[in-house]
């Protein structure tokens, strides 16, 4: 008893969560394996504590303000219907819809994953009925839980796990569209959890949207999506943060790539109050290819922090990072891109580019490339710049009769072009273009 008190005191301000978490763990659903993993994660969370101000990884995105008071962990209660979801769909895109509400899979608002060959969609309830060896093998690995306090926190407190399994040799044409909905209004903490397992020689496209239905003024969503891409497989993964209102969001994506796999991802942040995107790629086999693209357009007091980590563990892999940000008013942004090339990872090609545009004197951007290279035969580079709108280009457009506002919008839109052009689902690209256009001409 004494020991736990001491640790709890040490991890202030996270300590405010501990009494709730202790109670929560006794009430949550799940079989013995799940309960064991949750207990393990809680222990790890107690040990790690929440990042303090001097923690280098959270220096520009201090979390203390998010944990001043205790938070409750709401059970899902909602009365949403399919019609309520229409505004969040992508026009013209035929997709499998998966709806998660306050961290719990909603079967009635999700499609059955019919296809040839069949995809599988599980939640904790169905896993209890039909245990999955793949799930048992991969879910809740120690290395993951101890890597970050918010991963531990999610694992200690998730209500449900959405598990999507893609079999071998399955090229799924129809995208999977996940709506991660938060209905909470106040100081709740929601912990959605997803595991996507892609077999060998398969192809899949997944879109994950974050949506706040309520006011969400004090709400924190701590989401974790784990992805395993099997050898020879390709996965496109789009994370769209456009209906977040005032939500605070920690969105962690943890990706493991097997040999000759291809993972291509976009993180688009247009709304939300405070967002931290943690994106970690572990390229643990040869000839993996990874593309990490990001785009954020911020105003008012918005804050978005993109933390990427590409861990090259084996030879002959390639990674490419392309991030663009536009910041107005008093908004702030962070790009922290870490590339880790381990001694074995010879012939690695790793690139990183982060460009940002500040539209106001009060906006701020912190960019930090971190290249840690322990192999000698590699090509790695990074480039970053933060500047203003090009005044000469602006005048050129105006001198042709284009009004100042639309000239500015044209230039800002052009600035996002590199990232938008790489969105491969056409209907989604069109939607993102429209959202950005609307956002830039508000």
């Amino acid at each position, binding site marked *: 008893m004494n020991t736990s008190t001491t640790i709890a005191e040490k991890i202030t301000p996270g300590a405010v969560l501990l009494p709730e978490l202790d109670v929560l763990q006794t009430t949550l659903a799940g079989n013995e394996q799940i309960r064991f993993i949750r207990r393990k994660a809680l222990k790890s969370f107690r040990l790690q504590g929440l990042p303090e101000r001097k923690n280098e990884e959270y220096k520009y995105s201090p979390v203390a303000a998010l944990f001043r008071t205790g938070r409750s962990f709401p059970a899902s209660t909602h009365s949403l219907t399919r019609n309520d979801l229409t505004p969040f769909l992508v026009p013209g895109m035929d997709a499998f819809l998966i709806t998660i509400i306050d961290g719990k899979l909603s079967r009635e608002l999700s499609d059955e994953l019919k296809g040839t060959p069949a995809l599988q969609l599980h939640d904790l309830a169905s896993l209890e009925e039909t245990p999955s060896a793949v799930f048992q093998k991969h879910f809740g690995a120690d290395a993951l839980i101890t890597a970050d306090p918010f991963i531990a926190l999610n694992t200690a407190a998730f209500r449900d796990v959405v598990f999507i399994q893609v079999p071998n040799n399955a090229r799924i044409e129809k995208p999977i569209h996940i709506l991660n909905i938060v209905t909470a209004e106040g100081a709740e903490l929601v912990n959605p959890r997803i595991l996507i397992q892609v077999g060998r020689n398969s192809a899949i496209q997944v879109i994950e949207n974050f949506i706040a239905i309520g006011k969400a003024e004090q709400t924190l969503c701590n989401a974790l999506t784990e992805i395993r891409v099997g050898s020879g497989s390709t996965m496109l993964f789009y994370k769209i943060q456009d209906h977040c209102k005032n939500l605070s969001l920690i969105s962690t994506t943890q990706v493991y790539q097997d040999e000759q796999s291809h993972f291509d991802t976009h993180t688009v942040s247009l709304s939300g109050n405070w967002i931290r995107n943690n994106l970690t790629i572990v390229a643990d086999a040869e000839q993996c290819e990874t593309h990490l693209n990001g785009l954020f357009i911020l105003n008012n007091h918005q804050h978005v922090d993109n933390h990427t980590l590409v861990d090259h563990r084996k030879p002959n892999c390639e990674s490419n990072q392309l991030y663009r940000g536009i910041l107005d008013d008093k908004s702030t942004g962070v790009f922290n891109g870490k590339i880790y090339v381990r001694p074995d990872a010879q012939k690695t090609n790793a690139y990183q580019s982060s460009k940002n545009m500040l539209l106001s004197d009060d906006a701020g951007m912190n960019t930090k490339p971190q290249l840690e290279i322990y192999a000698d035969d590699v090509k790695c580079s990074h480039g970053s710049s933060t500047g203003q709108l*090009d*005044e*000469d*280009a602006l*005048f*050129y*457009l*105006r*001198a*042709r*009769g*284009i*009004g*100042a506002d*639309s*000239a500015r919008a*044209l*230039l800002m*839109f*052009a*600035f*996002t*072009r*590199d990232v938008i052009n790489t969105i491969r689902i056409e209907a989604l690209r069109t939607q993102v273009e429209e959202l950005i256009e609307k956002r830039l001409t508000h």
Partner: protein
Amino acid sequence: MLTIKNLKAGIADKEILKGFNLSVKPGEVHAIMGPNGSGKSTLANVLAGKPEYTVTDGEVLFAGKDLLDLSPEDRAREGLFLAFQYPVEIPGVSNINFLKTAIAEIRQYKGLPPMEAKDFLKLVKEKQALVELQVTLANRSVNEGFSGGEKKRNEIFQMAVLEPALAILDETDSGLDIDALRIVANGVNKLRSDNRSFIVITHYQRLLEYIVPDFVHVMYEGRIVKSGTKELALELEEKGYDWIKKELSQQVEA
């Protein structure tokens, strides 16, 4: 068409135009020549409304309106066109989208209905042929990856599409080889008409062999110090600008 009276303007406290006067009537072509630093490009930029320049005195009437009161875009919409000395590269904005937006906004300003897509494409094709601009414009960003000659031809192409009442060519000949020069000049000549005027700013008489001006003015220290017909350009070519400078200093002494 254009009346400039006692125009004084500069950049960051430095006065560059020091009482500039000029009157251009419809259909006329005026050449402005002069040594480096005499204020030729400043004149072009001030007329087009570049924000970093400040006008301290004088007035400019354009088609009966106070030009200096208008925003750069409204000047363009009223029919003023500046062919840039250094056309700007704009990555991510396609040439076609750029022109389409410009035409749409100009037509809206004039209260005209939007141009039909097929008419627009026809216009683009026709005017591209006029300046022998063979680059594919649809998928390429404005001036990006264009050679120096292509950039200048793109300026004349835009002028042809927008059909301005007054075009100011700011050293359009600089950096052009003789073939490109001829193409650009032909493009301009085909656009000459009774109600379209040109101000051609150049260092060299060479361009004026192709675009024959009605008047030639010599600019020095922010003012026009000598005006004449096309023969003046030849005289300048022969004697250089020192002759003008000498003449001026004699006037001052006398």
